[in-house]
């Protein structure tokens, strides 16, 4: 028996890659010789029993498989070093022992990522290369940052401790080479990627402090349809991406500067401007409602956000070639004294929150080249009271809770959101 290598199979047991080496032999009279032969096997063991034992799909190869990582889909990524002088290659095998893909090169698989891909270092160049779930190279870093136990990434010996984004690892127990961030062959499950996003939500606490509503809107005279505006400005968050806003900047998945919200559960990252300081505080929201029929998007704050609550963005028609762009939030400070103080500093019509969303609606006006509408006020939510348009444009603050149901109905179509 040769080359036994073992890693965990998620929380189902272990997976052993091994081989049987049959030396060459001949019959006693020198005839009937049989050449040497190697059979590579893929064996799953669960509860003390062999549940699967199959020959590996390595036809024509002369070596067995050394597993390094378990990918997001349960397949196993590792290396094959042929003994016949052929080039080594990285391979991904399904649990059925079928070869999913292979890439020729002297790699060292390092991290299985949540998107089904893998990050491997090239032993010749030291570069870290990202591969997608089909084995296609998709990017390259000069070297692999060290993955920390908390999911962050850093370079040893460098003060640039947080310049790398956290890498979302696959949800199994062997997503990192060596089983964990220290490589001690102890299987761990990286919590960052399997934690349900719902539990990350940061909801406002009505009895802990202020929780207020606020609305910014603008009425525009334009021939562009609400569908066009929804698709080009609301879904793309064009007003707060690409540094268009002086107050905040949104990015999409993988730091993409281009945002396109098409469904619920999408994570958007927000960085706030800090004119006097280096660095930016980044935090996230998750889309909660994406309603293309009614042209509404809403999002809930996630843990780490300085606010706790919800916000919606919508466009609707109030007449022929007469539309309204509106955004409203119902939120309070996030946990902690720092957020509490920050909320008071940022709230009010002259505060940063209203200023940021005033810029948002003004950007859409500017981008459309549309003049301002003519309505003097808007009766939001059928309260019977029209709020003057300029108050709504500058940033209307609802300290009384009169518009709570209106705002939450836009967020989640209910008077109570979660």
């Amino acid at each position, binding site marked *: 028996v040769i080359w036994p290598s073992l890693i965990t199979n998620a929380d189902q047991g272990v997976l052993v890659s091994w081989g049987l080496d049959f030396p060459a032999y001949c019959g006693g009279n020198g005839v009937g010789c049989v050449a040497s032969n190697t059979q590579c096997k893929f064996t799953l063991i669960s509860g003390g029993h062999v549940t699967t034992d199959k020959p590996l799909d390595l036809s024509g190869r002369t070596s067995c498989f050394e597993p390094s990582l378990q990918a997001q889909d349960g397949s196993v990524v590792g290396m094959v070093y042929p003994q016949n002088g052929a080039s080594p290659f990285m391979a991904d095998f399904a649990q059925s022992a079928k070869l999913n893909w292979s890439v020729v090169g002297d790699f060292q698989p390092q991290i299985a990522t949540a998107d089904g891909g893998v990050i491997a270092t090239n032993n010749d160049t030291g570069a870290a290369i990202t591969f997608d779930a089909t084995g296609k190279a998709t990017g390259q870093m000069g070297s692999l940052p060290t993955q920390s136990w908390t999911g962050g990434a850093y370079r040893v010996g460098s003060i640039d401790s947080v310049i790398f984004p956290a890498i979302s690892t696959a949800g199994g127990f062997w997503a990192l080479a060596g089983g964990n961030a220290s490589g001690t062959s102890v299987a761990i499950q990286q919590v960052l990627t399997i934690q349900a996003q719902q539990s990350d939500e940061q909801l406002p606490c009505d009895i802990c402090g202020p929780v207020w509503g606020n609305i910014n809107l603008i009425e525009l005279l334009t021939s562009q349809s609400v569908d066009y505006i929804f698709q080009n400005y609301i879904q793309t968050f064009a007003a707060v991406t690409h540094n268009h806003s002086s*107050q905040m900047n949104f990015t999409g998945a993988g730091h993409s500067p281009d945002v396109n919200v098409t469904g619920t559960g999408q994570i958007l990252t927000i960085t706030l*401007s*800090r004119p006097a300081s*280096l660095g930016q505080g980044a935090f996230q929201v998750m889309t909660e409602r994406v309603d293309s029929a009614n042209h509404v998007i809403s999002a809930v704050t996630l843990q780490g956000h300085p606010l706790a609550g919800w916000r919606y963005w919508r466009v609707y028609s109030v007449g022929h070639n007469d539309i309204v762009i509106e955004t409203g939030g119902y939120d309070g400070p996030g946990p902690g004294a720092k957020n509490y103080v920050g909320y008071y500093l940022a709230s009010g019509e002259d505060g940063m929150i209203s200023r940021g969303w005033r810029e948002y609606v003004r950007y859409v006006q500017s*981008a459309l080249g549309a003049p301002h509408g003519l309505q003097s006020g808007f009766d939001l939510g059928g309260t019977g009271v029209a709020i003057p348009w300029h108050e709504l444009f500058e940033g209307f603050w609802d300290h009384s809770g009169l518009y709570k149901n209106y705002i939450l109905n836009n967020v989640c179509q209910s008077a109570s959101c979660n």
Partner: protein
Amino acid sequence: MKTKTYIAVLTVACVTLTLGGLACVDVYIVRDSGDATLLWSPEEAYLFINVTSRGYRFSGLNYLAEFVKNYFNVSSAPTNETNSTGVVRVVPPTVQHYLLRNISFDIYAPSDHNIYARSRGIIWKWTGTNFEKATPEEQQKLQGATPHDFDNIHGWSRHFVGGPPYQDVRMDVGNEPVVLSVTHNSEKAYLSFDLRCGTGPSERVFYLDEGPHRVSKAEFRRFFEQH
């Protein structure tokens, strides 16, 4: 007792003078931010870099207060703002640079052997050295251009770049492999673009310091008047 009184009076006087001085002194800060769109075909590649420059004028006291506000995730509004667009055209082995002041674009689109861009709802056409307003027919035609990345549509591809901390974009331009390396370091506050054509050396084609710069009043005025 006399000494204590003397020290107390001196302390109050010093604090008053310092605060008075800070209230009278203005501090001028300029901060740039940028990102870019890469547009390429088998014949040529364009890197369009949007740079937004924001100016902040604080009294000395407000400047100190700004650090405190920033700690609480709150910031002031800029007093001045301007945009510019850097254009890098690559036809290996040549790399040409252009700088367009007072304008930025949100969408770039190729059509009928021309490059178009949209700024504040208006479509502009690239002339080879500058952008000029497109004709009414072109305005109509290009309004619906997609804001999203695309690959190989009539030979053209377009990607937003400058989001991730590190990014390599590989293209084949002029029968040569071309690699654009983008670094956007938010901690050290800079954005850089390096270009490598074929087996040639890597060349830095753009660098933007995104950190806050303290400038004099005259420099501040000159900067925003010039734009």
